[in-house]
């Protein structure tokens, strides 16, 4: 039957038409556990108003959600927003739609790393990297090595500034000079390896 109303396969946004398959970034984010709820966001801005670091972010959490839904991959992953998240979960508990905004930030950090948007000397990402190396090697965190590596990677001169701080902790018996290793490091390494393989599939 002929009809005046044709079913449009495409959604028109401005001059460009965006086909469903071009929404890959948005779709990926909401397919990841913890990311699905951003569908429910009504852009009230409670998250942005609650975040202690929102004023340092390129885009507030509210904007980040809007941009993910608009599939603005480049802009979102290049931004500093998720790297300024403190993981304090204030946005998450206040969100009237119960969106796990803090968890969304974790998802975006991982995607930014995977897609190569993270600067080599990025501070927050390098700090995280140091902890990852620690855990893989020892099964636990060894603060001294983690700190030294962090400064060498991001700001070697900063190490000098931190020396008195480290010394203060050392003198109080709060800066062990040796790592604490777990016994079953082999088991730990195997678990990490398995998880890595699963990430790839």
């Amino acid at each position, binding site marked *: 039957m002929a009809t005046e109303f044709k079913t449009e396969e495409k959604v028109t946004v401005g001059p460009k038409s965006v086909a469903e398959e071009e929404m890959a970034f948005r779709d990926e984010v909401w397919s990841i*556990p*913890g990311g699905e709820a951003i569908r429910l966001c009504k852009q009230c801005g409670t998250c942005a108003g609650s975040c*202690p*670091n929102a004023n*340092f972010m390129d885009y507030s959490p509210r904007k980040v959600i809007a941009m993910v839904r608009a599939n603005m991959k480049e802009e979102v992953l290049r931004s500093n927003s998720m790297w*300024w998240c*403190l*993981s*304090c*979960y*204030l946005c*998450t*508990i206040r969100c009237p739609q119960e969106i796990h905004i*803090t*968890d969304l930030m*974790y*998802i975006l*950090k*991982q995607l930014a*790393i995977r897609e190569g948007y993270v600067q080599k000397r990025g*501070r*927050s*990402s*390098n*700090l*995280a*990297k140091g*902890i*990852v190396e*620690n*855990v893989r090697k020892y*099964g*636990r*965190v*060894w*603060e001294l090595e983690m*700190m030294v590596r*962090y400064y060498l990677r991001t700001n070697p001169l900063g190490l000098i500034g931190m020396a008195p*701080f480290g010394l*203060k*902790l050392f003198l*109080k*018996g*709060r*800066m*062990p000079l040796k790592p*604490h290793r*777990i*016994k*079953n490091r082999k*088991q*730990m390494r*195997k*678990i*990490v390896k*398995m*998880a*890595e393989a*699963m*990430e790839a599939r």
Partner: protein
Amino acid sequence: MKYTYFPGCCMTGDAPGYEQSIQAVCPTLGVELIKLDDWNCCGATAYSSIAELQSFCFSSRNLALAQKEGRDLVAACAACYTTLRKANSYFWEYPEVREKVSEALAAVGLTYDKRVNVRHLVEILTTQDGILKTLEDKVKVKLTGLRVASYHGCQLVRPKGGFDDPEYPHSLDLLVKAVGAEAVPFPLTSRCCGGSMTISRPEITLGHIYKLLRCAADNGAQCIIVACPVCQINLEAYQGKVNSKFKSNFNIPILYFPQLLGVALGFKPKELGINRNIISSKKILSPYVS
């Protein structure tokens, strides 16, 4: 009461005073903490930022080891508590996470198939029947007149589903009152101290710390108690830097909460690792220490 205890990396690193005071105070209150053998790092905020699935997998190694013990798993670090809780809830809420984590655990001969309750030490001391009463009864030196700000921090009470109000918690105040001290009003009690970014963005975090110290000081607090090693080092070790940035002169002792309880229970400061804190609390504690 017996619990499986998850110390976390800070207890073997920058927070020996926390560990020491926990080990002194808990047995006195009838709380038996049995260390989880060969526990590993929970992954904290950092590992999850880079590879969350890996973090879930090895976090769950702890849960699988704890399952064998058959008791609730208790952490005293707010970050460990939240991270283990997150791994636990994602494991049980998302079948795809459960499947992958189980597979990784199975590869090393571990099973996690019976939910282990993850709890915080503050929760145990304040919600478990009779413990607050025991604490009151065992007090040897009432801390009358000591004004304490209870800083709960963020991850102790957030996200939802924990043991206290996620914005206006009061659990630590219960402990403060039980030992006879005064819990001063502290509106910023669950405002984040910025701990996860102190190293990477000190210029910002110092502002967060300043607000907390200001709030505590303005409300007349003589000391702040915390239930997280990250909060402790952040509020204590950076006070000098805060002072030079904001032209303030804070010198507020930051005590791990069991250190405060321990003083009231009659332990010597050294037995509670108070000597390992950077800011001396001699002056404020001297009336209560023999």
